[in-house]
């Protein structure tokens, strides 16, 4: 894959018209992170009801890759159970957009929102779950994403 081929129709569209973009004022959990190297910055808000992500929105600033991946990720997560969302892998996101072979420096753009999502869940579960070991695994996962 030539690096330029990543800019296909879908990516350009999502970057201009991201889905699930915005804030949830009465969220049950919110998390923010940024990419120290390029300045991309993402917030994710979620409503969680009965272990189910009933609503999810993101906002922030980022490149086309970042915006498209955030759109795809939130779309995947919406309506799912926490356990399923926990298991979303990077290839679930990258595959949806044909970005499996993205170069290292751009992987961070693509996966920033997944990292934020995992940290958000970590912080939510930390407050609502007994099994702290299980929760820590989530943090490890988030930290080691890229």
């Amino acid at each position, binding site marked *: 894959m030539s*690096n330029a081929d990543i*800019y296909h129709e879908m990516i*350009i569209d999502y970057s*201009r018209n991201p889905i699930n973009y915005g804030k949830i004022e009465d969220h049950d959990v919110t998390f923010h992170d940024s990419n120290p190297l*390029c*300045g991309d910055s993402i917030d994710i808000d979620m409503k969680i009801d009965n272990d189910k992500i009933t609503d999810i929105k993101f906002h922030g*600033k*980022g*490149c086309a890759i970042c915006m498209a991946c955030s759109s795809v990720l939130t779309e995947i997560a919406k309506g799912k159970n926490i356990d399923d969302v926990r298991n979303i892998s990077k290839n679930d996101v990258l595959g949806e957009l044909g970005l499996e072979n993205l170069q290292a420096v*751009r992987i961070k753009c693509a996966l920033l929102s997944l990292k934020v999502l995992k940290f958000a869940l970590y912080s939510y579960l930390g407050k609502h779950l007994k099994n702290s070991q299980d929760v820590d695994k989530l943090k490890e996962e988030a930290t080691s994403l890229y």
Partner: protein
Amino acid sequence: MQSAQTTFENIRKDFPILKRTVRDNKPLVYLDNASTTQKPTQVIEAITDYYKNHNANIHRAVYALAEEATELYEKTRDKVADFINISNREEIIFVRGTTEAINLVAYAWGRTHVKEGDIIVTTEYEHHSNIVPWQLLTQEKGAKLEYIGMDDNGELILEDLDKLLGTGKVKLVTFSLMSNVLGTISDADKIIAKCKAAGVFTLIDGAQAIPHMKVDIEKLDCDFFAFSGHKMLGPTGIGILWVRKSILETMKPFHGGGDMIREVHKYETTWNDLPYKFEAGTPNIADVVGLGAAIDYLSKIGMDNIRQHEIELTSYAIDKLSDVKGLHIYGTKDISKRGGVISFNFADVHPHDVAQIIDEEGIAIRSGHHCAQVLMERLDVSATSRASFYIYNTKEEIDKLINSLNKVAKVFKL
């Protein structure tokens, strides 16, 4: 000195990397010189010659190699003194780069002289390395960090400085002589005059200025000056901190270790003479030698010729870029007030995407916050694209940049 014309025509062959192709066999067009510059054969060979013929630890041993290595190392100190026009070689400290230089000042001067309630002044267009060390210092000391604002033309608002100096609490004013994002050349003479009148020290971050224009520190009359070798054709890992001697004498040691001591006893130690008091441990000898070669190279071309060459390239680039629909250039267009650094945004396309698409054409520019997030906030953008020029760049390369932007327009349907 050769005529400037021939000089610049012949320069490219001194830079091996410029023969490289990248991606799909595209010739490299390197336009990220504000980040780091490429190295001429002369610099690379100075380093290899050092390792192949003279390598030894310096200052202490009496054998032949050590004598040669010491001489090579100390000769660069003289070259630096000459290059920035200061008469006292003891005022020159070798460090890793601008970042270490500024941190050294924040620790070894700041921790002694800055007290609760004092003010350190920096500017809105500083690099993180001229902001964060002062945040750390002022937070530790209960002092305050204040900013000289920037107007919409990308120039500093000196009334802010007047107001701050008026408080009588300012200990240090620190600013870059050239912004690494906008290319703005600060009005150093005015700033320093105001500070002198108020009895306030000045630190200049010269990382961007030194490689691109003649800098005369004696004439500037500031108190601290920092720059990096790798942005001026020199190797990575070496930079310079210059400090006026009368101030250097009031500074505590920073790193403790070999070479910076006079006598070490179990429970107390006395310090070596300047500048060695501030050069603890085995220094980066080979890269000091390499920096010496870079200074020779630049001096041979002449800093005024370099500035002239960059003015031509920059004017040409600003003209061409201004014609690109939807492209916005930040900062002043008055070429006498800026160096060869151009930050821009292209319609609604994120700078990363711009950089990545034109990288396919072999063109290397930077995108992002350029370690200047305070400035990004001021400009109300999250990032910019930045092209920056040096002695080996040509108008043809700028044409290629412009052409590659057409591809961006096509991909993003602008």
